[in-house]
């Protein structure tokens, strides 16, 4: 008897699920948001970003920074060396304040203030370098001026040693420094994918759920079709489960297609996303992608159930969208923090929904995944998802909620 009842229940759920899914497939807005947008917009955006990043990097490399020089030292040796330097363009000012003002205005990228240091036994040149680190040009100018000053220092030391009869080139340096980056182009690629993909996949779950979810819950109330469903031989539990499964399916499809669009975009146009001077190769194994889906499903259950709850409570689609905004903002903020890589996310923190998924996905992509993190993530999200499904069914049975006016 119980088996027949249960069979009938799932048969009814499938009926409603099929009807809702067909309705969704016939809705132009859902198709645009779920299919067209992720598959075409993401690669397009990455192509545009990649193009402008490459152009900007080339511009910066070819740039000869303008440096304002305020000379209170009258060191002819330095000035001669400066004028021979082809990597900088010098603009000579008398007034320090005027020079700083023009750096802020962008007339020049940096300023050197030259003063005589007279407190030491032998007077030397005191150089203060001013630049604006908030601009890329300022940072490049600062690096070029620093390199120039190092060269000048080396020449001055060489001259002093020559005067003492010592050949600078024959001196053994007490310290030699070589910097080797052990990151491979593959690991750089994984780092980039690991920062971007989880954020967009998680966000796509919610955006996919929000659009359709509000329509098939609050929208039913707005259109007046809810009464027809309630009078049918579908129980309220079956109605909620049918709608929940529809929202879950569409949200997961949205997430998967976002991943495909993003990966295609990164693969072909992501070169500009690599750090300056580095190259990145982009790949994601099928096994890693499979594990990502496994981790994403419980989070999709949570978000789909939340959307159904909010939609059941709201009187209209617009009201539902308003109530869902705080959830959207939380995911955006948590996602942005996860992209910076600045937060240490370990151990029991993997019990926190949404954040746990973002960091678990990052670990899977980069290849540093810990099994206990996956277990915590799956268990915590599955538990929350089950609670929210039960809450959505309970809420849907309440007249005061269903017929709020």
């Amino acid at each position, binding site marked *: 008897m119980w088996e027949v009842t249960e069979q009938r229940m799932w048969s009814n759920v499938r009926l409603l699920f099929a009807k809702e899914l067909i309705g969704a497939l016939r809705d132009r807005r859902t198709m645009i948001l779920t299919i067209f947008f992720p598959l075409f917009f993401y690669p397009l955006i990455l192509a545009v970003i990649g193009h402008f990043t490459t152009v900007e990097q080339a511009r910066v490399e070819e740039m000869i920074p303008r440096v304002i020089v305020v000379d209170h030292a009258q060191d002819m040796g330095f000035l001669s060396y400066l004028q021979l330097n082809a990597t900088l363009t010098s603009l000579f000012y008398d007034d320090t304040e005027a020079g700083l003002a023009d750096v802020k205005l962008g007339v020049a990228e940096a300023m050197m203030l030259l003063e005589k240091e007279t407190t030491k036994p032998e007077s030397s040149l005191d150089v203060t370098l001013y630049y604006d680190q908030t601009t890329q040009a300022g940072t490049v100018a600062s690096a070029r001026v620093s390199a120039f000053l190092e060269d000048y220092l080396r020449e001055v030391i060489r001259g002093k040693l020559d005067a003492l009869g010592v050949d600078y080139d024959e001196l053994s340096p007490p310290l030699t420094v070589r910097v080797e980056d052990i990151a491979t182009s593959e690991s750089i690629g994984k780092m980039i994918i690991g920062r971007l993909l989880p954020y967009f996949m998680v966000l796509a779950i919610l955006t996919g759920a929000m659009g359709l979810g509000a329509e098939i819950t609050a929208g039913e109330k707005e259109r007046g079709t809810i*009464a*027809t469903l*309630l009078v049918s*031989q579908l129980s309220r539990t079956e109605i909620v489960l049918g709608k929940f499964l529809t929202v879950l399916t569409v949200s997961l499809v949205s997430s998967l297609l976002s991943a495909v669009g993003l990966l295609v975009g990164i693969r072909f146009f992501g070169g500009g996303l690599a750090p300056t001077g580095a190259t990145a190769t982009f790949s994601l194994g099928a096994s890693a992608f499979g594990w990502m889906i496994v981790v994403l499903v419980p989070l999709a259950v949570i978000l789909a159930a939340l959307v159904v709850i909010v939609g059941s409570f709201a009187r209209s689609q617009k009201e539902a969208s308003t109530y869902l905004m705080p959830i959207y903002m939380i995911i955006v903020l948590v996602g942005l923090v996860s992209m910076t890589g600045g937060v240490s996310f370990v151990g029991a923190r993997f019990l926190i929904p949404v954040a746990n998924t973002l960091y678990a996905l990052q670990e899977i992509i980069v290849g540093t995944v810990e099994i206990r993190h996956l277990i915590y993530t799956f268990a915590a999200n599955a538990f929350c998802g089950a609670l929210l499904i039960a809450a959505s069914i309970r809420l849907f049975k309440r007249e005061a909620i269903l017929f709020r006016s």
Partner: protein
Amino acid sequence: MSEAMVEVRNLVKLFKTRKGELRAVDDLSFTCYGGEIFGLLGPNGAGKTTTLRMLATILTPSSGSVMVAGFDTKALPDRVRERIGFLATETGLYDRFTAQETLRFFGRINRLTEAEIEERIERILNMLGLTALAGRRVGTFSNGEKQKLSLARSIIHNPPVLIFDEPTFGLDVMAARAVIEAIQLFREQGHTIILSTHIMQVAEKLCNRIGILYHGRLHALGTLGALQSRFGKDDLEDIFFAAVGGEATC
């Protein structure tokens, strides 16, 4: 007399509002017999929709009882839903589905076999003059066509009791006429029909018996002839005002 298909006894429905408790339906009692069209006549806010929603198991009575086709709506709502067809004020249709798809869906959730569904779709669409629209999406229908399809949806599973809330709401004279004729046809086929309306002419044309509802209470009940005799008026609108007496307010 035919058997009682709908029995309402001391029905009360209370809603909690910010201003306190609203008694939307106040100690309502009436019986609807097999094969008749029973009309609940009253203005907006009289309690008609609330009453019909309680009959249809959408709302639960605060007190009192409702028996539909022999089953208590509170104790056995599933059994009641098997035996009713419901038409809300809104058409309750999905714009992206065709007429056939709509009827097929409701036929399936009302547990008809595929053979039964196809046979009934053809017959009902033909009966209501909708055959030519079978493959068209509901979103392209006129209001009258949508209302007729809603009627078709409500009878796809051949329920003995039909509950129609303002069936001619928002329809022009041609469409309203078509709906009235369809409802008369349903009565001829043996269905028991309870409908609500605020339009006097609809009640006059369709109803075997009329219940005058105002502020949640039944002020008069009977055939049109009985009401005319009781209140000494011929016009149903005059009968309405005579029945509600001093309570009538704008």
